[in-house]
């Protein structure tokens, strides 16, 4: 458990610095960094529960991050994208794409293909997670608005 908390803290700090690279400022930066921590925490906890496959963990952590981002967006009147972009940073498969391309160059086509497929799987799961949450949030707020 302490291991997970330590990694969560590291993800939070990594997201904080990425937020600075993305020019996020002030209160938005703090909450964007928090969503980065949350992203890793959910991922690590789901990995503990479902050790067989990582894809559900990526999906759920992206969904949780997007939900937190939507709440922050409503609270601070900022676009949710500010918080999601920084929040999902700890898990986006940047290293995976790099490894795919490096394997392509070194001529090991089979390994490159398998790295490519796993990268697309991760990116797809995270994109789905974000989309599902934001669609549900939009549906709920739309219904509430049309009732009034």
């Amino acid at each position, binding site marked *: 458990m302490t291991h997970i908390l330590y*990694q969560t803290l*590291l*993800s939070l*700090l*990594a997201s*904080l*610095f*990425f*937020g*600075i*690279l*993305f*020019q*996020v*400022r002030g209160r*938005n930066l703090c909450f964007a960094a928090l969503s980065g921590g949350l992203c890793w925490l959910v991922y690590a906890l789901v990995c503990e529960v479902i050790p067989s496959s990582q894809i559900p963990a990526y999906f759920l952590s992206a969904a949780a991050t997007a939900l937190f981002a939507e709440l922050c967006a409503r609270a601070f*009147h*900022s*676009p949710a*994208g*500010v918080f999601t*972009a*920084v929040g*999902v*940073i*700890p898990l*986006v*498969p*940047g*290293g*995976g*794409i*790099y490894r*795919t*391309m*490096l394997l*392509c*160059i*070194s001529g090991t086509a089979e390994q490159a293909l398998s790295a490519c497929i796993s*990268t*697309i799987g991760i*990116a*797809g799961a*995270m*994109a*789905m997670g*974000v*989309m599902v949450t934001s669609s549900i949030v939009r549906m709920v707020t739309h219904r509430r608005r049309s009732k009034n």
Partner: protein
Amino acid sequence: MEKRALMTGSELLSDAMTLGSWLLACGAEIYRVEESIRRMCLAYGAADAQVYAVPTAIIATVRMDENHVETQVRRIEQRGTDLNRVNALNALCRSVCAHPIPHEEFWARMQKIADADVYPPIIRCLASGGVALFFTLLFGGAAADGLLTLIVGCLLEVLMELIGRIGSNPLFLNVLGGAWIAFAALSGVRLGLGQSYDLVIMGSIMPLVPGLMMTNAIRDLIAGDFMAGITRFAAALLHAAGIAVGAAISLGMSSLLLGGF
């Protein structure tokens, strides 16, 4: 009728498209760009507005009335990520949609957004080092590896900043970045500054690699913005290929010269 008096059709389309192109250049989502332009046109009394955006261009047509239709195309040359500006532009768009303001006032507010502070280069260099450091630790690196990546990451941003000023091709910039990271990681580990050059490379490339771009590409595809999704997907692969080519050059050279690793 009163709303229409605030801006002429071409002024309106031109202003709305400038707002949209700034949003796109700062890394806003495609649907946000399209929605912002469309809503702003409708708020100023246009009868209809059709917008089509891809990451490198925007096309929009606004119909003020039966006889007055205007179309403009904007090419987006330079792209980066400035979420603070996205935030400010989004706030401006919401505010003019609620209370339309005249052309001059709109431009004064746009100018204010353009002049807003950005983090100075030194902070960006430190942030790049910080990203590299914490990712290396997250991947299981030791403290010594972390220290080495901090230095490599800071100097990476310095290199990017300097070469970016000359106005180099973005792909070549990535090749150089990848080459620098692999070279610095290998020599650092050789000199005894770190233990695992692999972890140092993985951490240091984090500020460069297009992981977010890849995820957003798939998001665009799911949302139905197929052209945008495919464009971004190709851009992400090319971006990563540049970094990998750079790293491969350094790794190959070192194994030729030193025979190790």
